[in-house]
């Protein structure tokens, strides 16, 4: 159906009504096959112009026919025009849809998301115990490409790379792109104009909205924005959410600054000048749903339960949203979209609240952190590490936090006399931001808590050493972070320094005053006589006392630990400076009196050099003398190793629970068991828990506690719990060896829970039997089995085994104990250790 010749050249002419009518009918898709097959705007431009003119003509004639003469004629003519208009409108609607669909390809946002620098995000969440391995690397990466706009990147890439700066706070803004090529936009505009003037505005908006919405949805899927209900998000593990928050931040920036902004631009281009706020209506029609879907995630995060570890990602989210807010305000400036603006602002304010809430929650958690067991060797308490790492990490967000934290910490007042809250004097801290005051306050309550903990040391010297170590660590951490140091200020830092020096002095006084007292002259001279009037017996007694005291101090304090080498060195030097000259002069004055008598070696055990080198043993954390030391050696050392590597928050919680409960359980048993308990079980549990911490659920432990075992008269309360987490370890390590171990464990424990019992005895023993060809019925078998599995397990796990040893002992199964001892501990901790334990058991 070729259009007549004269039409094709008549672009600037107006088309007569009859011809126009004919053109409209020709393109009536309900009438002709060809009209159905072809799209006008896909074809010849002349045809396009012609059709549009025809529509214009019909519309013109509609307004003019009303002055036609005959009434009936007018009616039927009206109907004819009307009908033509509607045919044309239906056609235009289809054309409009067709153009939109043809140019609907989702925005290529992949390149932004999976660009090279994104790989740095894969490093998992921060770890409070690995001190300064901070997430700052993440931010450094993000800063890449910032600032310079003439870098040849395409607009999208450029937009994203300039959008970011440190800690997600960004200054850059909207980058619009052409979602649809300009020619197509012109066509769309010319159609929209005609549809709207014919009163088909609603149809136009709807077609537009439905096509653009699906384009938007496709872009969303490319960006990885999921549809998650709030309930779903509350159920997700925080670690999972951390990755999602990161992903969301990136996606949201692209959405707001590129997708939504470009959508808005497109609407403005197509509907510009056609009618009031039509562009806005179309825009909202398109992005309302997607925007709600986008913000739903942030909404869900903002209302999630608060806990300290959430602080960092919530701050990230806050900063990101804060940075986007001006852009959101621009993109959603119209009245009809204020609900989206309001929602974003609400989320932001809820995130702000969350940050404040978490900080105060953290403070009260630090204050109330209730573990009562003293850290062996007086070293740095895990709480100290945790708190200091935490505050040095949050001070990376100082810019945000200084703005958000507006109120001073709620401290106890100096004269409140409340023994559960420390005092803090604000007067001397004038001019500090509330956030800085909070940081100082956290350090104050940390020290307060630590002081409470130090009281659990029986040895006052150790308590002082503990405080010295911990406050020193605090000072080091503050110095290590420029932000923290700046906020806390040198004044307070000096105070802290004074504090650990004071603790060092107190330690020296507590330990060394009495030792040095042995080296005084008084009491040695026989009254009345001069020069050589020295009482030999008194002198001998004095030397013996000194030797015994020094030996004891050496023995115990070599096991104590000062982790900081410089501090350790300083303290040793300070000891030497007092001890060595005093001893040297004492020796100089009285040596001859002893050497002239019998068996001088019984009284003068140490040369000056001996003492000097003995002092070098101090604070090394050696387990050097005695059984307890032996035990101490293998376990806490490995333990420290472990603590340094990876410890997380559930770990603290559960270890505390177990720790205390374990000790409670031990309280009723013999002193030896208490020693064992303290030295072995506690570290062991602490040691093993991280292995399974991810799967730990508090109620599982509660259930474990309920399984009380009464075997051989021992009430071993933790039996069930031990078993539980053995099981957990087995699950997480899925080492076949472990499952077999459990079968033995089952024999020892005889758990009260029949389900566990059955599982232990049948399934695990069977597995063992099938693997080894032996049934674990006799001790020999057990022993051989034990040595067989021995070398298959790692050094860390031996500690777990050591606990079984201890447990066996508790249960009164000495034989078992011996076997375990030889097989497991023998290999790992050496024959010495076993001898030590045996001796101890024998005594």
């Amino acid at each position: 159906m070729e259009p007549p010749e004269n039409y094709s050249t008549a672009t600037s002419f107006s088309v007569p009504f009859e011809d126009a009518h004919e053109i409209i009918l020709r393109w009536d898709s309900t009438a002709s096959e060809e009209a159905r097959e072809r799209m006008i705007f896909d074809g010849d431009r002349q045809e396009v112009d012609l059709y549009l003119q025809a529509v214009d003509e019909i519309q013109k004639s509609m307004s003019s026919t009303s002055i036609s003469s005959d009434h009936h004629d007018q009616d039927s003519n009206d109907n004819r025009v009307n009908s033509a208009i509607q045919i044309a409108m239906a056609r235009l609607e289809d054309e409009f849809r067709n153009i939109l669909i043809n140019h609907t390809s989702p925005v290529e946002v992949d390149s932004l998301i999976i660009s090279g620098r994104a790989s740095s995000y894969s490093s998992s969440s921060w770890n409070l115990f690995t001190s300064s391995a901070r997430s700052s690397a993440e931010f450094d990466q993000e800063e890449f490409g910032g600032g310079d706009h003439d870098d040849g990147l395409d607009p999208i890439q450029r937009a994203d790379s300039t959008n970011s700066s440190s800690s997600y706070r960004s200054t850059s803004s909207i980058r619009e792109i052409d979602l649809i090529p300009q020619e197509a936009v012109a066509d769309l505009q010319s159609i929209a104009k005609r549809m709207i003037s014919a009163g088909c505005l609603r149809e136009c908006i709807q077609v537009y909205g439905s096509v653009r919405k699906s384009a938007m949805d496709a872009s969303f899927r490319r960006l990885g924005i999921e549809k998650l209900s709030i309930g779903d998000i509350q159920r997700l593990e925080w670690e999972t959410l951390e990755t999602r928050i990161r992903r969301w931040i990136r996606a949201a920036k692209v959405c707001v600054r590129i997708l939504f902004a470009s959508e808005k631009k497109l609407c403005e281009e197509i509907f510009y000048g056609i009618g009031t706020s039509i562009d806005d209506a179309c825009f909202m029609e398109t992005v309302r749903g997607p925007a709600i879907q986008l913000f739903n995630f942030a909404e869900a995060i903002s209302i999630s339960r608060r806990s300290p570890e959430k602080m960092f990602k919530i701050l990230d989210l806050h900063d990101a949203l804060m940075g986007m807010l001006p852009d959101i305000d621009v993109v959603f400036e119209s009245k009809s979209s204020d609900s989206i603006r309001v929602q974003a602002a609400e989320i932001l304010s809820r995130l702000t609240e969350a940050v404040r809430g978490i900080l105060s929650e953290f403070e009260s958690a630090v204050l109330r952190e209730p573990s009562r067991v003293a850290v062996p060797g007086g070293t740095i308490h895990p709480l100290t590490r945790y708190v200091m790492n935490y505050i040095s990490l949050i001070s990376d967000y100082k810019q945000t936090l200084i703005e958000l934290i507006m109120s001073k910490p709620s401290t106890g007042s100096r004269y409140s006399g409340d023994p559960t809250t420390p005092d803090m004097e604000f007067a001397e801290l004038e001019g500090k931001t509330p956030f800085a005051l909070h940081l100082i306050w956290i350090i104050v309550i940390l020290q307060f808590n630590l002081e409470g903990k130090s009281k659990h040391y029986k040895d006052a010297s150790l308590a002082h050493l503990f405080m010295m170590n911990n406050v020193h660590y605090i000072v080091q951490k503050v110095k290590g972070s420029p932000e923290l140091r700046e906020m806390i200020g040198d004044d307070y830092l000096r105070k802290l320094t004074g504090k650990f020096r004071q603790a060092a002095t107190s330690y020296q006084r507590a330990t060394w005053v009495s030792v040095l007292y042995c080296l005084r002259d008084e009491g040695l001279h026989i009254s009345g006589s001069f020069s050589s009037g020295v009482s030999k017996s008194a002198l001998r007694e004095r030397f013996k006392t000194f030797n015994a005291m020094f030996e004891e101090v050496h023995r115990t304090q070599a096991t104590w630990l000062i982790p900081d080498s410089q501090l350790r060195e300083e303290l040793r030097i300070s000891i030497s400076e007092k001890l060595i000259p005093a001893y040297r002069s004492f020796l100089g004055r009285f040596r001859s009196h002893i050497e002239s008598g019998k068996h001088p070696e019984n009284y003068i055990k140490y040369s000056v050099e001996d003492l000097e080198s003995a002092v070098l043993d101090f604070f090394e954390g050696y387990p050097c003398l005695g059984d307890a030391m032996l035990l101490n050696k293998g376990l806490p050392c490995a333990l420290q190793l472990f603590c340094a590597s990876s410890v997380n928050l559930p770990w603290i919680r559960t270890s505390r629970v177990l720790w205390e409960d374990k000790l409670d359980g031990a309280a009723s048993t013999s002193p030896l068991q208490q020693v064992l308990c303290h030295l072995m079980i506690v570290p062991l549990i602490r040691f093993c828990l991280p292995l399974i911490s991810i799967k730990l659920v508090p109620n599982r432990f509660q259930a474990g506690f309920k399984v009380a075992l009464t075997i051989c008269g021992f009430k071993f309360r933790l039996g069930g719990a031990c078993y539980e987490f053995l099981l957990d370890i087995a699950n997480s390590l899925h080492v076949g060896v472990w499952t077999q171990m459990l079968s033995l464990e089952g024999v020892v424990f005889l758990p009260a829970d029949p389900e566990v019992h059955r599982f232990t005895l049948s399934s695990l023993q069977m597995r063992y039997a099938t693997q080894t060809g032996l049934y674990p019925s006799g001790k020999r078998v057990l022993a051989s089995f034990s040595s067989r599995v021995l070398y298959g397990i790692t050094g860390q796990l031996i500690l777990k085994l050591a606990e079984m040893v201890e447990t066996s002992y508790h249960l009164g199964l000495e034989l078992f104990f011996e076997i375990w001892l030889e097989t497991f501990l023998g290999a790992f901790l050496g024959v010495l250790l076993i001898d030590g334990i045996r001796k101890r058991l024998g005594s």
Partner: protein
Amino acid sequence: MPATENQPSFLGRISIRRNQIIAMDGNHEQELEDLELFQRHIGDRFAELTSPPDNQDSPFSGESFLSISWLRKLVDVLLCCEAEFKAALIMGRDPSQISKPPLDRLLSDYMERAVKALDICNAVTGGVDSIRECQKLAEIVVSALEQKPIGDGQVKRAKKALSALMSASAIDDKENNHPRYAERTWSFGRRGNNSGGNHKDRTNHGSFRSLSMVVAKNWSAAKQIQAMSSNLAVPRGGESTGLVQPVYIMSNVMVFVMWALVAAIPCQERSGLLTHFQIPKQFGWAHAIIGMQEKIGEEWKRKEKKGSAGLLEEVQRMEKLGQSLIEFADGFQFPAEDEKLEEAAAQVAELAEICQRMEEGLLPLQQQIREVFHRIVRSRREVLDLLDHGKVSQPII
């Protein structure tokens, strides 16, 4: 008022309970008084909703059961009850009181329920959006058929909008988790063979339509209601002291209002909605609620067979009018008989009036639902804070 008749019975129960807990802590008298008041207020508020409006001159006064304005009142009642509940729960209370069992467990259940209610709020907000889509289609019909005289062109235009409207409101939310409102049909049945590329786009296009719903694909409003009500156990004698009762009542109120909203407004996946939630009959405060629940249940049963967009009165009337206007359009021949035109004009006027009511009511309803959302979030925060404060030696989590 129905509530007044019920009062003796529930006062009776109160006095029984009074005896049970007479030995409890000192301020139980005050507490019982508060509880009594709380229950009465709940009963009264819902009774007011069931009582018919005063002006009954028009059957469609706009105030009728399950209309937009009725739903708005219902949501208002929820907001009032919630405020009172929170006052009873939080104000001037020692946190340690709250964090003791069984209240701590009940409250954390309540918090769980609140989170689920948030998702329902979001889904219902989406549902209101879909009704607004229907409204827009109906407006097209109105604007086409309002013209005088009605010609073929107008009828054609109206027909197209009508068929979109009818398919939008006839939702089968089992198969097609979302109403088909946004989709305006092509004016011709199929596209030609020259549009192979377009064809792909179109199929894509069709599958995107779920995007009006904010919630995940497998999310189900019915299941959500079920999850909210499943652990709602009637407090037993020993437990029914102090705050246990208000928590129970408030939970029921919340579940009921959510349930009613889901029934009235299109929501993703609502099959089996009826069976999921039953309020025990023995409580005075519950009578009005149960009455409404039964009424809505009957409506639901009637409508479920037809696969309706929801029980919202305006939508149902819109459907009915749409149906008869389709008949009118199908039989239309120019020039039309006056009688038919008059009939159609009346229907168009009614449709216009419904559109007007939707225009006025839907956005405020949406805002109210948003307000419920905020309120729930706030209360949840406050209660969580209380629960946390109550625990004395909370380890660092």
